């Protein structure tokens, strides 16, 4: 794994986006081929990065040959390779799915261009080592997602996209204000260098203000509870593959990963910040779960469930012990897999029957066997039934909470898990079991590409628990070690710069 391969994660999707916008108008097959080739290569590269990561643990690439902190550097460490595998795996399966699903919309080349731009933005956020570069890639991904949420241009989609765009822009302004204040205090923009400069200069009250600004800005991107109001409108209104991408990996990359990188590695954590994470996580779990029970629209229920599960991840990261961080990152990976699977299932239901309302569906088990079985596996994973992967990650989080002494919070987490099981049983019962409506007697199973991606995601759900056995555990442990080393990130990065 040469360090020269690092810029490819950004070059491949950007090149694919520009080529699709140039040649995609000619035929639809070209768009499909280019997009799927691009995500296939990205998946191959990220698996390569995960498997052959050097024993020292970090790769640094100087863009343009300029030595950091003068130039921008790209950093590949344990957390980066973990996030890269998550993002590229889900996006590869979603592009396979959208070969068939996007036939119903006009202008497939516009969809693929925006999709590749969003993917380039997300990969750029994960791999960069410079704070303003993070902001630029964040904005690229955000603007592409505002346009993708409004893709069908129906009434609901436009309203949802406008709300999402306004709130996202205000959050980005908060982040830019935070970056400006941090630059004025440390006069450098490289992440490792900021960490070192903060060690030298010491903590002053402006650092708390910067921390609050970043928490507000990235918290809105991650849909933590005071800032979650855009998510229940934006995620259902997008086309199903985009909902899978948004709920599965977008809010995790822009929100949770950026929060981790800034708070654990740059600003340095303290007991106050960890406690704020725990409180925000608990409130998100409760609010998301309670509001999800009352929904009748499938995708809106899944959107509230996303808020609840992100609460689990932030709660686990807030506990701060090594076992808790391992559990939080494992739950991040699992949630990407099964939430993408569930949203793709809802897209398949909508493709076959034309409706998303729970009251009008029923008994689809006989007509849509693949969709029914994969959504059964997805629902059981997210509710935490053994031996599927959701069970293991929730178990680790709850054990870590009890070990750290937060008995009340662990009890709340268990109760929220039971409520999660309740509303997923409601979803399964209303949609797949029961009597088949006479209007739906002649629906067929969904096309091959959609079935293929749903099956692969379901298989990963079943086998996900194997990530904890000692052969595969370094995948998670290296990610957790990066967060636990905290401010040691600066020393490691400067040691690896040649």
């Amino acid at each position: 794994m040469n360090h020269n391969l690092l810029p490819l994660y950004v070059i491949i999707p950007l090149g694919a986006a520009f080529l699709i916008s140039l040649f995609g108008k000619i035929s639809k097959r070209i768009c499909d081929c280019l997009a799927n080739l691009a995500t296939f290569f990205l998946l191959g590269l990220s698996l390569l990065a995960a498997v052959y990561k050097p024993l020292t643990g970090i790769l640094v690439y100087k863009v343009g040959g300029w030595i950091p902190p003068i130039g921008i550097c790209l950093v590949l460490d344990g957390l980066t390779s973990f996030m890269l595998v998550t993002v590229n795996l889900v996006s590869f399966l979603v592009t396979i799915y959208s070969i068939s699903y996007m036939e119903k919309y006009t202008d497939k080349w516009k969809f693929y261009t925006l999709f590749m731009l969003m993917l380039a933005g997300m990969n750029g956020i994960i791999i960069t080592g410079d704070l303003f570069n993070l902001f630029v890639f964040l904005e690229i991904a955000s603007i592409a997602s505002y346009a993708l949420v409004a893709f069908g241009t129906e009434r609901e989609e436009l309203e949802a996209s406008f709300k999402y765009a306004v709130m996202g822009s205000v959050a980005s302004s908060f982040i830019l204000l935070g970056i400006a204040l941090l630059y004025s205090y440390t006069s450098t923009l490289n992440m490792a260098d900021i960490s070192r400069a903060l060690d030298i200069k010491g903590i002053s009250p402006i650092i708390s203000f910067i921390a609050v600004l970043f928490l507000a800005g990235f918290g809105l991107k991650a849909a933590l509870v005071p800032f979650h109001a855009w998510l229940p409108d934006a995620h259902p209104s997008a086309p199903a593959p985009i909902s899978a991408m948004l709920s599965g990996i977008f809010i995790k990359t822009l929100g949770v990963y950026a929060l981790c990188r800034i708070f654990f590695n740059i600003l340095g954590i303290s007991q106050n910040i960890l406690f704020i994470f725990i409180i925000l996580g608990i409130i998100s779990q409760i609010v998301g779960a309670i509001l999800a029970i009352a929904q009748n629209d499938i995708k809106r229920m899944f959107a509230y469930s996303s808020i609840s599960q992100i609460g689990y991840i932030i709660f686990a990261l807030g506990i701060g012990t090594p076992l808790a961080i391992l559990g939080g990152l494992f739950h991040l990976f699992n949630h990407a897999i099964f939430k993408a699977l569930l949203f793709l299932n809802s897209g398949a239901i909508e493709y076959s029957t034309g409706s998303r309302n729970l009251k009008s569906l029923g008994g689809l088990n006989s007509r849509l066997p693949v969709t029914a079985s994969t959504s059964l596996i997805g629902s059981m994973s997210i509710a935490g039934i053994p031996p599927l992967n959701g069970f293991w990650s929730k178990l680790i989080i709850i054990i870590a909470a009890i070990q750290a002494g937060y008995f009340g919070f662990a009890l709340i987490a268990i109760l929220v898990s039971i409520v999660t099981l309740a509303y997923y049983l409601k979803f399964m019962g209303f949609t797949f079991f029961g009597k088949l409506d006479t209007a739906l007697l002649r629906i067929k199973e969904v096309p091959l590409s959609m079935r293929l991606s749903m099956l692969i995601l379901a298989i990963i759900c079943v086998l996900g628990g194997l990530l904890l056995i000692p052969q595969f555990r370094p995948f998670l442990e290296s990610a957790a070690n990066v967060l636990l080393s905290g401010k040691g990130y600066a020393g490691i990065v400067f040691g690896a710069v040649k």
Partner: protein
Amino acid sequence: MKNNKEPGMTLIVKTITRLTVGLILLYGIYIVLHGHISPGGGFAGGVIIALSFVHLMLAFGREVALKKLSQAAASILESLGAIMFLSIAVLGFLGGYFFLNFFLNKGRPFSLFSAGIIPLCNIAISLKVGAGLFAIFVVLILFKGLGEEE
């Protein structure tokens, strides 16, 4: 009352536009090419180039401006600008690093042909920004036209 029969603005505006549009385009190209010596660069120059076409559209109406630079041509120019920027960056790989200065490495200060790949990047960015802004404007005027015909 006179504006209802022919598109665009009055005769005075049209005459002045005929005189100044070329100068605005030339000024934009000057700012792009001197981006490494004086303030400006790719983005500001691209905006001024787009403004010259927008000026033409405001003064004479949509059809005249679209004859000069059609919507399909703007779209192709935009993608070409982006691909040119990306390939300049990838060509840096030849020297060993992404975005390396591989071209006219040691220039003299204050001369036009110096500063490595920066003038090439400026030209690519100006193509993309100029064509992109013009395309945005054309599409927004398209909406207004649709709204009025109903």
